[in-house]
């Protein structure tokens, strides 16, 4: 990162020596120690300290207690189910989100603005409202005769509903910036539709799809409100990790609840970090300096 304060050998001689103080005022890369302090304090109060407290609580029964809490059959079942559902929903999002973004950016049709606005609704709604919305159409009194309440399909639907915007909103700006002339150049060189997508468009889109998919996975793995009503909280069938945690708390097992939470947190963190590292590697390759 080249800061203006750097003394470049090519700098013309005889420039005013007042350059250093001026640079201190106009430097964009630097920050004020007070600002840094506020940022650190804020993030600590909001994120770091509560997580540390959670870790401490999860270990209150010692490492054995922690292990016992997370390796209980009921814990393993619900964690496995949650990860599987979240992964499945994220894969669906990766495909559907990309298709939706493509249609919104590349196609022109009546009602496009409406469709674009609809994408954010699941995100804006309180999740419990999302649950009621889905239950009213796919619940026991379904006006169209589709009954998903108490089924894994219902849980997946709820998770897909709340994570709809992530991939769409990550891919849309990248797609908008994409150089359509590169695609035309590929066509003139003999490449057809699918080859153009695979070799020219996808490599540019991939990091955005990955980051959107990662966010939707992280959101899905911890989802609570939207699955409460439609899932029915059936252990081993539709109970997700957040509901299991709530059940533990209600039963007074604070340490066990904290231990399962820590596992959830670790999985999300791992997935997000992996995706960030891969996509930044791809970016580096592209802009290799």
């Amino acid at each position, binding site marked *: 990162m080249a800061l203006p304060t750097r003394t470049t050998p090519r700098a013309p001689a005889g420039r005013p020596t007042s350059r250093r103080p001026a640079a201190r005022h106009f430097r964009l890369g630097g920050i004020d120690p007070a600002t840094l302090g506020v940022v650190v304090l804020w993030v600590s109060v909001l994120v770091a300290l509560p997580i540390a407290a959670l870790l401490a609580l999860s270990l209150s029964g010692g490492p054995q207690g922690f292990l016992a809490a997370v390796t209980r059959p009921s814990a393993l079942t619900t964690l496995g189910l949650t990860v599987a559902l979240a992964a499945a929903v994220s894969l669906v999002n990766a495909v559907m989100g990309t298709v939706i973004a493509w249609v919104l950016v590349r196609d022109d049709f009546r009602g496009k603005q409406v469709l674009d606005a609809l994408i954010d609704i699941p995100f804006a709604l309180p999740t419990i409202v999302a649950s009621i919305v889905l239950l009213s159409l796919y619940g026991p009194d379904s006006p169209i005769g589709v009954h998903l309440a108490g089924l894994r399909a219902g849980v997946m639907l709820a998770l897909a509903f709340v994570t709809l915007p992530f991939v769409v909103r990550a891919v849309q700006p990248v797609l908008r910036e994409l150089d359509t002339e*590169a695609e035309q150049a590929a066509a003139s060189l003999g490449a057809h539709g699918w080859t153009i997508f695979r070799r020219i468009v996808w490599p540019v889109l991939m990091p955005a799809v990955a980051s959107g998919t990662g966010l939707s996975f992280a959101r899905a793995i911890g989802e609570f409100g939207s699955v409460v009503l439609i899932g029915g909280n059936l252990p081993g069938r539709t109970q997700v990790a957040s509901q299991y945690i709530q059940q533990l708390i209600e039963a007074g097992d604070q340490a066990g609840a904290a231990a399962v939470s820590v596992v959830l947190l670790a999985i999300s963190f791992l997935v997000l970090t992996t995706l960030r590292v891969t996509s930044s590697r791809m970016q580096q390759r592209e802009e*290799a300096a």
Partner: protein
Amino acid sequence: MITVTDATKDWGDFRALDGVSLDVPSGSLTALLGPSGSGKSTLLRAIAGLETLDSGRIEIGGVDVTDVPPQRRGIGFVFQHYAAFRHMTVRDNVGFGLSIRKVAKPTIHSRVDELLELVGLGGLQDRYPAQLSGGQRQRMALARALAIQPEVMLLDEPFGALDAKVRAELRDWLRHLHDEVHVTTILVTHDQEEALDVADHIAVLNHGRLEQVGNPTDLYDHPANSFVMGFLGSVSRLGHTLVRPQHIELRKLAPGEEPVVTDWSAAKITERAVVERVTHLGFETRVELVTLPSGDRFTAALTRKNANELDLAVGDSVLATADRDTEHATFDDWSI
């Protein structure tokens, strides 16, 4: 040979191409020249198959390609903004067309090396487009288009995004490359100097219509109309006639002298004028004048030698004359 017959294309209410018919001879370097909105890029993109015509036909090498998709037209297309594949190395960019054609890897490898040598990018195989200068990127784009051995090269304002110095260099280089490779090439440009410099054929377009086709000297010396004359060089208006500034002859009048005009024939245009400003531009001298009594302004371009002999100063009265014959492009224009 590329033959365009009666090409017409509308963009909503705007007629981009209005019945254009054009023959581009094999092996030529033809420039489509015109102001922005003249339809030159639309025509080029239609030849490439990147745009479909509303009506009309396009033939390449005797084959009607009007309904053939761009993939099978055998054309190489170069865009103004390079259209580089950003995530691929220079090698993969140039080899793209060959890899689509399932050419064996070692063959692609050596062919790409050859092409990069040809366009002066030897040794940059492993760079990414972001690591190249604008001029280098455009050379890469040319190599990429040449790789598939196209029947026709189509260049859409290929030097438009480059600075003046690089543009001039690449222009020379393209001329030499064309002498070497000899593939039929069409170049779109709005820069008359570029067209005159590089092309052996120029087609001038305006408002979606073809105004004139010919070689550069023909178009400059014998423009078909006042638009072509004005677009391919500077123009002065002497009375109601458009002439080239360097074809105006000036004779200084002594104070109080009443000029005796001997030739009032239609072959000679004569105006009395007063010198308003004299500018020395190195090899030529530009004289700005006001005609008497109408007050119209015009410019004459003199050689340095001629200007020194005349020794004009601001306020001098002169007699300005121009010939109207086949050697000198002139147009009557009564619009003012």
